[in-house]
């Protein structure tokens, strides 16, 4: 073969296979396309059951859509007109009604509720599922405990369709905790059949398939590649979802996720870099929704046990030297809610998160540092989680530069995602940036984790103060008995103290960014920040 002919034929073959290959060929496939929602995201679930060992966050999304809970939240209009879950209003999902007594709550189940395999949902299933949540250990048990749900004896079968949950103690978070993802109702007979002596709760079985009564069921799951979910047409937990089929594909490359959206091939993507979101927003070709994380704050933390951060003056100096506005503009492209720069005379609110009064003031920072006995500054390390390098890295470089101006020389310490939590757990990082957000949107919930003297993993600053503990526990106790005045006083108390002692410097409330095609509507913001397919509509 001559060289020319050969080259011609090669390009010919390549072009031949490429050009006439439209995505959809037959009419049936076009039909399927209009009833199917194609979601692309960076990573997928590693387990379909939230009770599993080490289930990752994408796994929560599957659980949320494929299982029902007894109750769920009502919707309200949130920031920017986005449908937003209503923290204080509950509506029944699997339950028909809910009667809250003094020390217990009773649920009556919907009579016609069925699991995906057709078995009716009974009180026994509910008890078994809740028992499982408080018994399997790890994250689910811990989350149940956050609402004072700790022992199987608390869940009582009254009759076939009635369940009573006894309170261990009065706790405002018990009812909200029954509406999070963890207390989902599982088909107990089906799972028990597939359980073994080594695995009495059947975790291996539910890891691979969904066994719930939810609006969707997983029909195919290829780990790391795709999840396909079909609508459960017998669902009684709410209005029938419009989307028949959800295909969720993992596309690791952010640029490709954007290209897929812009070309109109993907319907929704929700983990694009901020810059891409801003550009997509400006182009106006897609629906872009940005909602602040509920009860979440990105912050600069300082370990108060490690000198010189044990000195409040040093911490205040750092807080005055943070380039807040620059971070908002350069790192986040404005896609976050500032948590700094409140007016000097602004009163403290009974809310969390709320902005501090700090603004960038290098002169003041220098003076404070001199006052603290470090006129020439000091050296330290500034650590961040590489798993979120897109935001953390530029943020830390800005902070490093700014702290340099007051003589604090920082070395940036990049910690791989897998090690981040281990390092935080050691509580040996002097200065770092991190983000925390709580599912339950209550100020005292945030503070118990992040500021309480029992020094949980999220109290990354090892901050311990008797005064702080008194405010936090005062607020928790006041909330349980509904003493509004004391509650408000204590919340303001702990917020003021947190800003005065400033062991962690709030920077901003991050946004959840969702990009979708113009013909997709019905996005709802949930505390877990994952997608709720049940409300989505594709025109």
């Amino acid at each position: 073969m001559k060289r020319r002919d050969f080259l011609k034929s090669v390009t010919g073959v390549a072009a031949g296979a490429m050009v006439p290959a439209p995505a959809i060929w037959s009419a049936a496939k076009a039909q399927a396309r209009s009833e199917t929602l194609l979601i692309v995201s960076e990573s997928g679930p590693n387990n379909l059951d939230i009770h599993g060992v080490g289930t990752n966050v994408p796994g929560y999304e599957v659980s949320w859509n494929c299982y029902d809970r007894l109750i769920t939240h009502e919707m309200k209009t949130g920031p920017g007109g986005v449908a937003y879950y209503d923290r204080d209003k509950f509506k029944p999902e699997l339950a028909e009604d809910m009667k809250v007594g003094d020390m217990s709550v009773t649920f009556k189940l919907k009579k016609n509720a069925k699991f995906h395999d057709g078995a009716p949902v009974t009180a026994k299933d509910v008890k078994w599922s809740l028992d499982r949540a408080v018994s399997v250990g790890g994250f689910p048990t811990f989350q149940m405990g956050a609402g004072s749900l700790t022992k199987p004896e608390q869940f009582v079968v009254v009759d076939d369709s009635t369940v009573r949950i006894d309170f261990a103690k009065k706790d405002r978070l018990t009812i909200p905790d029954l509406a999070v993802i963890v207390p989902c109702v599982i088909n107990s007979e089906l799972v028990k059949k597939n359980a073994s002596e080594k695995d009495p709760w059947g975790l291996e079985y539910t890891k691979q398939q969904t066994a719930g009564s939810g609006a969707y069921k997983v029909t195919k799951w290829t780990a790391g590649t795709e999840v396909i979910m079909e609508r459960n047409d017998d669902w009684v937990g709410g209005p029938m979802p419009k989307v028949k089929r959800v295909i969720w594909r993992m596309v690791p490359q952010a640029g490709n996720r954007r290209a897929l959206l812009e070309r109109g091939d993907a319907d929704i993507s929700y983990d694009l870099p901020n810059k891409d979101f801003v550009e997509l927003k400006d182009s106006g070709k897609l629906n872009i929704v940005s909602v602040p994380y509920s009860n979440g704050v990105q912050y600069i933390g300082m370990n108060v046990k490690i000198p010189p951060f044990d000195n409040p003056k040093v911490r205040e100096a750092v807080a005055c030297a943070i380039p807040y506005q620059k971070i908002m503009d350069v790192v986040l492209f404005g896609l976050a809610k500032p948590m700094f720069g409140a007016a000097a005379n602004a009163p403290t609110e009974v809310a969390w998160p709320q902005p501090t009064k700090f603004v960038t003031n290098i002169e003041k920072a220098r003076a404070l540092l001199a006052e603290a006995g470090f006129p020439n500054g000091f050296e330290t390390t500034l650590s961040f989680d590489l798993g979120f390098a897109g935001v953390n890295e530029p943020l830390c470089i800005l902070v490093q530069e700014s702290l340099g101006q007051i003589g604090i020389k920082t070395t940036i310490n990049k910690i791989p995602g897998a090690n981040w939590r281990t390092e935080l757990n050691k509580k040996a990082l002097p200065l770092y940036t991190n983000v925390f957000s709580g599912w339950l949107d209550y100020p005292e919930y945030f503070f118990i984790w992040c500021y309480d003297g029992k020094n949980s993993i999220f109290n990354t600053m090892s901050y311990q103060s008797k005064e702080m503990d008194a405010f936090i526990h005062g607020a928790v106790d006041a909330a349980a008995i509904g003493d509004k005045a004391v509650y408000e006083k204590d919340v303001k108390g702990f917020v003021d103290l947190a800003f005065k002692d400033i062991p962690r410097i709030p920077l901003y409330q991050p946004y959840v960014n969702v990009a979708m095609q113009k013909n997709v509507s019905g996005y709802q913001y949930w505390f877990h920040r994952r997608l709720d397919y049940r409300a989505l509509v594709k025109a």
Partner: protein
Amino acid sequence: MLTMIGKRLMFAIPSLIGVVIVTFLLTRARPGDPAAYFAGPAATKEAVEQIRKKLGLDKPLIEQFFRYTADLARGDFGNSLTTGQPVATEIKNRLPASAELTLLGLVVSIVIAIPLGVLAATRPGSWIDHLCRVTTTAGVSLPVFFTGLVLVYVFYFRLGWSPAPLGRLDVFYSAPPAVTGFYLIDAIIARDFETFRSALSQLILPAATLAVFSLAPIARMTRASMLAVLSSDFVRTARASGLSPGTVIVTYAFRNAMLPVITTLSMVFSFLLGANVLVEKVFAWPGIGSYAVEALISSDFAPVQGFVLTMAVMYVLLNLLIDILYGVIDPRVRLEG
């Protein structure tokens, strides 16, 4: 022949044992605590300990090792924590995806590189020689993810000729019944030409990316080896005897120049199979490379060990195959020697 193969496989056993020990120790020596990672963002110390116990990581290292080898002997590679699946199944599912892509990339590369190398060698200093030099230098110096992204940008995003970079098949096609695991072959077996076409069109861009990258070693090696052979005595004799240039080059020179090319091919293939992580990432390809890297990032031991072991076995088999091929191409090569 058979005794030779048996002998070669026997020799491979100590190196495989070495690989098992080294990967086990290396994965354990990495910083990072899988228990803390998988306990989730909201885990308490107790929760982390519970996870550690469940994963068997609270046991002494030596006990973990014996348990691991005992499982291996039963063909159990353990479970991946990131994907939640048994490692053996995952590798079985993902290896064909990588192999299909790599083989196709390699075939495209061979089809272009070998003629290019031969032509460059027969006309040293001509424009085709320069073309060969320029393309290979460009190919090897462009990072694969860059080539991949440019191809996606041009052929998918701008021109719309290529389908969405969403892995092995368009979302609305289902995979053909698995026989070989290679979608192209399976689709032909199932006589499902629509799927064949979809699979092929998904393959073109990633395969082209890999081909661009692997052009250089093959073309350069072909050229160098051809040059050496063309200047040897027997070629001069053949020419002097009045054989046509075609016969001299193809029958005499090319066959003799093949040995180093085959060696390069085997190296390129095994290298690509493991190293096409970036291509897999760019094209959302469910292959073995991206699997291993993701596992590594999340301190997920079992898949890393499984991956290294699989690659080691593949190297052993590939080397054996190449040695056998040597014998076919050049009967003078003695396998024992």
